[in-house]
């Protein structure tokens, strides 16, 4: 079974989104989504890892024997993540300091291993690449949505410390929405992340339900039209 590229993209961004549907990689998702910049940093690092590991796994899929494929995947993912960690330490030093332990922990994000095993090891390089990108972007979007919610409610700001990612010149990107806001601790702490993710999933389910209904209505209508 080879899915079309459109299907692969749709899966990653919506119908099989790692954050909303597969619920994989929850640990970094919940821990690092307290501000938008943190969320974006971790999301991009995860996307890069997914793309690199998917492509590599797909390239070597015909050489690797089934018995040793899991350790080989683990080695590939670990090498990729460590390389990204070193690069971030070199080029985004302060962001690296804030994300801290969660960069090396990308290794343990099961979404990456899951894609390597379930998709990349059975598909050609092009599809594996698109899948990695779509899954990564899907994950980043969830992180960003959650990060925005938590930052606005928790700190009353948008894009605080934007300079960590975009350099000193980007400080104007940071917006304080409510001056003299004392902050709302629940949103910043892990319970806020759980509640926020729950709400987001609920919203997604409502949208899915509406879409489903409309589809049914359309089928009924066409069926009715055909009957008359």
């Amino acid at each position, binding site marked *: 079974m080879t899915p079309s590229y459109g299907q692969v993209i749709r899966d990653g961004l919506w119908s099989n989104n790692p954050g909303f549907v597969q619920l994989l990689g929850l640990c970094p998702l919940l821990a690092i989504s307290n501000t938008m910049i943190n969320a974006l940093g971790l999301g991009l690092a995860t996307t890069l890892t997914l793309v690199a590991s998917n492509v590599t796994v797909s390239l070597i899929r015909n050489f690797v024997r089934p018995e040793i494929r899991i350790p*080989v995947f683990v080695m590939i993912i*670990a090498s990729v993540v460590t390389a990204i960690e*070193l*690069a971030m330490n070199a*080029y985004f030093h302060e962001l690296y300091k804030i994300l*801290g332990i969660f960069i090396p922990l990308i290794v343990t994000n099961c979404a990456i291993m899951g894609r390597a095993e379930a998709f990349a090891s059975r598909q050609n390089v092009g599809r594996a690449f698109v899948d990695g990108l779509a899954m990564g972007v899907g994950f980043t979007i969830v992180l960003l949505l959650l990060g925005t919610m938590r930052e606005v409610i928790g700190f009353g700001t948008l894009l605080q410390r934007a300079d960590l990612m975009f350099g000193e010149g980007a400080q104007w990107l940071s917006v304080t929405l409510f001056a003299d806001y004392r902050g709302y601790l629940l949103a910043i702490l892990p319970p806020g992340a759980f509640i926020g993710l729950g709400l987001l999933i609920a919203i997604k389910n409502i949208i899915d339900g509406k879409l489903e209904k409309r589809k049914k209505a359309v089928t009924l209508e066409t069926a009715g039209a055909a009957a008359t």
Partner: protein
Amino acid sequence: MNLARNMTVSAILLGAFAITGTGLLALTHQATRERIAQNERELLLRTLNELVPGTERDNDPYSDITQVLEPGALGSDKPVTVYRARKEGQPVAAIINAVAPDGYSGRIGLLVAVRYDGTLAGVRVTAHRETPGLGDAIETSRSDWILGFDDKSLDNPRPRGWRVKRDGGEFDQFTGATVTPRAIVRAVFNTLRYFESNREAMFAPAQGGQEPGETIDDA
């Protein structure tokens, strides 16, 4: 026979992947090493400059260092680096890279800058894993709490006052986080006490092949 052959091939394949992965990492490490070291250095230099501005000294504290091993007072069982600031050869301040060993999530790395007269020029946190949103108010980017140490000394407040308010002292704790500030207050106090009794040794010149930890003969 066949099984043995299969296993050998698998082992060789695995080994090949391990070697390739390690090779890639070694290359990345090589390519980024200098940049990372430079980042660390710049961050440290910026903090040192914040604590003891260039107008108050005429040497480079980053290259005028000594190391002391004092697990009890400075919180680390490894030698602790002390950066010395001087003006016209006279000691100005020592910036001690002490550790608060009992933070809420482990060790908190500190830079404690003590002027020669025993007052604090300032304290900064260099590394920590305290709870985001609660304990991380010790960072200057999150709150001004740590600036509360400026100009304090062993007599100001009195030793009984070197505690957080909840313990009857003079330093604020944070809402929801007492352990973190308590650990830092204690570490700064211990560092000050250590400085008081080892002041001269701390400013002794370390140049001329003096090994860290070696006794100073003419003291």
